[in-house]
């Protein structure tokens, strides 16, 4: 096959002609060619069609991007939701710990803070487990309090943890005193609430009266808020009246507690609460 002819002179002429054409346009100040003016209606029509196609095209891409953006934003919202919940938990924990610290600071007793690590769901037993044990100086029969009052006492202890018998447990018994009348009584657990034993019929008890520990049982220091009288029932028989007590502490939702490791009175608590 013979080699094809090449015409470099054509290229040269073309380049020179192009440059002359452009130079002429610039020199003459005609930066826009008259052909553009003549063809502008055609270009305008073409532009309308092209713009329509481009808008449709762009909208399609915008939709695709919007979907991806939507997915990403949903993920971010979920992440922020989780973070917000975490912050709420931290705030709530902070508030609880703050109350405990206040209690600890106002008390003359020596206390150790502990976190509740397990509860007991059985309705016949009201106990919980805390994360402090023998190695932290915890021993059996130490009093356990929450931010609002008495929670219970330690009934079993291991190296790393301890079990707390709540005051609402049927096996729990606490020596208590009416804060106003100073009358003594024994408080027994009754499931969700507590009952006061040996309250004489002649005693004038009203719902709302505060009950504190008397310290006479040798387990719970004196002056810890225990609860508020909820109901008083005069019995037809016997010499005592039936008093139902609502614990000061919300025992179902305890998350942090203080264990009183030494001290027989917490008189400052009593003062604070009165």
């Amino acid at each position, binding site marked *: 096959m013979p080699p094809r002819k090449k015409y470099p002179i054509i290229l040269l002429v073309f380049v020179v002609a192009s440059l002359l054409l452009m130079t002429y346009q610039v020199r003459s100040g005609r930066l826009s060619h008259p052909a553009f003016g003549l063809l502008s209606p055609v270009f305008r029509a073409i532009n309308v069609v*092209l713009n329509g196609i481009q808008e449709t095209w762009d909208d399609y891409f915008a939709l695709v991007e919007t979907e991806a953006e939507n997915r990403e934003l949903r993920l971010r919202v979920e992440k922020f939701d989780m973070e917000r919940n975490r912050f709420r938990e931290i705030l709530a924990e902070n508030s609880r710990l703050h109350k405990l610290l206040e209690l600890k600071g106002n008390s003359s007793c020596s206390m150790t803070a502990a976190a509740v690590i397990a509860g007991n769901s059985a309705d016949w037993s009201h106990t919980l487990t805390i994360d402090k044990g023998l190695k932290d100086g915890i021993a059996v029969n130490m009093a356990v309090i929450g931010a609002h009052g008495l929670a219970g006492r330690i009934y079993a202890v291991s190296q790393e943890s301890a079990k707390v018998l709540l005051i609402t447990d049927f096996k729990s018994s606490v020596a208590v005193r009416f804060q106003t009348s100073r009358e003594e009584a024994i408080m027994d657990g009754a499931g969700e609430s507590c009952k006061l034993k040996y309250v004489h019929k002649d005693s004038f008890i009203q719902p709302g009266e505060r009950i504190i520990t008397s310290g006479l049982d040798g387990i719970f220091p004196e002056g810890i808020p225990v609860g508020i009288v909820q109901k008083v029932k005069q019995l037809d028989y016997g010499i005592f009246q039936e008093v139902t007590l609502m614990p000061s502490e919300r025992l179902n939702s305890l998350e942090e507690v203080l264990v009183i490791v030494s001290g027989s009175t917490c008189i400052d608590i009593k003062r604070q609460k009165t």
Partner: protein
Amino acid sequence: MSIANILRWVAVFAGLLIFQVITPAFRGVKPDFILLLVFVFGFKFGETRGLIFGALSGLILDIYSGSIIGPHFLSKGVAGYGAAWFPGIFFRENRFIITVCMIFLTLLDGAILEAVFNSYSPLGGPNMSSVLRQAVIVGLLWTLIDRICNRELIEEQHT
């Protein structure tokens, strides 16, 4: 070249022009489909026809842009000529060399546009960074075209 053939190329040109206008830019660069078409035309039909086709394509682009007539007229004309001339001095069936030639011609097209616009237009021309990216895109697309219709391109040259 028959009338039907000419009309076919005009239709392809119009279609690609529309496609180029509506194609969104990727990292600031749109594939120059018109330049690719000029390359294909020049490669198939030789220097003179390539130059004429390139110049006419450039002329339409210049008129469409509303600026001075010349920058695209010149750059696309040179590209059409070069698309036939460069493969002629190398072994045409060597795909790699041809692709390198097309990349070089894309750079040359960008360089001409930049030089002309900088000299004749107050707005200036494309920057070299976008010209380089354009060269890579055109190189890839040329490879694709070559893979798909290499036989047709080569056969056309011998007829």
